[in-house]
């Protein structure tokens, strides 16, 4: 007789679902806000070629959180500190793409190693250790959740206030500075916002998986749209669906949240890719000669 490796009820079970949702309303709201803000900021991450930097910042954020765990501080404050230090370092030292990649490449293993060192010195609850790397929103305490939501909202406001100059700067830094945009300030402010939102996502999906909310939704949106309004809106929608959908699905099973979020976000990207491909094929078939002539 075959014994199944896992029980389906671990993955989906909708008993007492309503109660669970009510209990975890704060987590769901945090996921929703992060999804939206992550999608929006992701558009600029893609445009400014910062995906690798996001990963580096998240590892330093993990180290900060681990240090806070070891020395008994606030984990949220620790992750914020780590992320901000990394973001500002990258922003100041790595304004050229090649410099930036080498700096991130140097910072990332250092941060990860530091974090693992702190975690192995820490002899508290072991559940906390793993959750920083792979995320577990349901284990975040209620006041901390409040902070996460508040920080995400602040990042959203900051992003909207410098939306146009940031777009200009991301497209063409030379022209933007010629027009009098303080490009250095804009880049640095963007890195600070990025650091803040990375620190938030470390708590929700974990340091190793932040890209699923900060890069994938925007990348997916850019596959199917081009407008200045449609891309950010789609990216925000994709981020929202991934984060909230992932949390809601995770509530139905006993598995951690992150795999659900990353899977949804990946599926959305794959869907957008298929849409783009089929569109391109239709276009090619409909006007094969004119496009070649133009």
């Amino acid at each position, binding site marked *: 007789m075959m014994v199944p490796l896992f029980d389906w009820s671990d993955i989906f079970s909708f008993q007492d679902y309503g109660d669970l949702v009510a209990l975890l309303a*704060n987590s769901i709201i945090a996921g929703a806000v992060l999804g939206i803000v992550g999608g929006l900021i992701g558009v600029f991450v893609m445009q400014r070629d910062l995906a690798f930097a996001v990963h580096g910042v998240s590892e330093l954020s993990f180290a900060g959180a681990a240090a806070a765990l070891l020395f008994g501080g606030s984990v949220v404050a620790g992750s914020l500190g780590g992320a901000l230090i990394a973001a500002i370092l990258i922003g100041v030292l790595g304004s050229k793409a090649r410099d930036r990649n080498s700096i991130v490449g140097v910072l990332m293993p250092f941060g990860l190693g530091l974090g693992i060192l702190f975690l192995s010195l820490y002899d508290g609850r072991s559940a906390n250790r793993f959750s920083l790397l792979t995320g577990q929103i349901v284990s975040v305490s209620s006041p901390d959740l409040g902070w996460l939501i508040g920080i995400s909202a602040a990042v959203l*406001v900051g992003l909207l206030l410098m939306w*146009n100059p940031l*777009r200009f700067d991301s497209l063409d830094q030379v022209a933007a500075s010629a027009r*009098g945009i*303080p490009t250095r300030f804009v880049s640095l402010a963007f890195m600070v916002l990025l650091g803040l939102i990375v620190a938030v996502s470390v708590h929700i999906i974990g340091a190793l998986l932040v890209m699923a909310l900060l890069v994938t939704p925007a990348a997916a949106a850019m596959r199917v749209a081009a407008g200045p309004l449609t891309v950010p809106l789609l990216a925000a929608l994709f981020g929202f669906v991934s984060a909230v959908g992932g949390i809601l699905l995770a509530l139905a099973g006993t598995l951690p949240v992150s795999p659900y979020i990353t899977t949804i976000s990946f599926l959305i990207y794959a869907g957008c890719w298929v849409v783009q491909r089929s569109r391109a094929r239709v276009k090619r078939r409909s006007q094969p000669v004119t496009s070649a002539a133009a």
Partner: protein
Amino acid sequence: MDGTDQTIVRTPRIHLVRMVVFLILVGFLTWILQQPVRAAFLNNPGLNGLIGVCLAVGVVLALAQVVRLFIAAGWINAHWASRRPGEQLRPGRNPPSLVRPVAVMLADDKTPVNATLMRAILGLQPLSAGSIRVAGQPVQRGNPRIGYIPQQRPLPPDTSMRARDVVALGVNGTRFGLPIPRRGDRARVDALLEGVGAAHFADRRVGLLSGGEQQRLRVGQALADEPTLLLCDEPLSNLDLANQVGVTEIIDRQRRERDAAVLFVTHDINPILGRVDRILYIAGGRFVLGTPDEVLQSRVLTDLYGTPVFVLRAGDRLVVVGAPDAQPHHEHDHDEDDA
């Protein structure tokens, strides 16, 4: 197109109706959301503090809107308030351009003297000595009287912008604050697109456009504020011959119709030869300044380079043979020195 008719007069306009609708919407949303939000965060001091901060930011923004309203109504006489590019650009109020519309060309340098000069005029490069005045005023960062046309570098194919959005950045790209479009922005962008011959691909993705099409958009972006001085930094490099002619034509039209001065950096003299008043020829740390006929002579350039150089004419075209620094460096990358 007649230059005087086209001069854009933009005064700050407040959209009362839009503001009222916005406030009603915000109020309605707050009212709808207050119950669930309160229930969710009742025991959450940290969040309450942050909500307070957000509210304070909102109040400040609203106050700023009210101040703008008063300024627009003329109740506050504030020059500082409407220093936005282009808004005060009425004929007669500002002194017209440089002494005379002049097109100067810089050619053939190995050191990035041209880049430094442009950055100095744009106010991005401090001078070690001397001073620069643009239209009678000292240089300043973000001078709306100056339009800057950078070198053509291909935009990444996945850039999430349409052609129209690149030009629109010239109109709204310097505005901090909520990205709410203003009345007249769209018409202005349409006019700019028309002016650079980009109307028929206005809604296509920029990443998929050809180099010439992208460069027209950059020109349109630079013309957004009706500049009286156009700085063109190798705008024709990487373009094919037809596009070189097209882009030159647009820039020259701006010079004629708006009485604008043009400073045009290039390594290839030919595309603009008939339209240049004066040439500043830089080579090996020295320069010659004069009319094209004065400068583009074998004797003058031989003296400048210090080795025998021949200027050969073929029809209305011209070739400089034997210049020691023969390899043109098209990709003098600005990111490198700007960073």
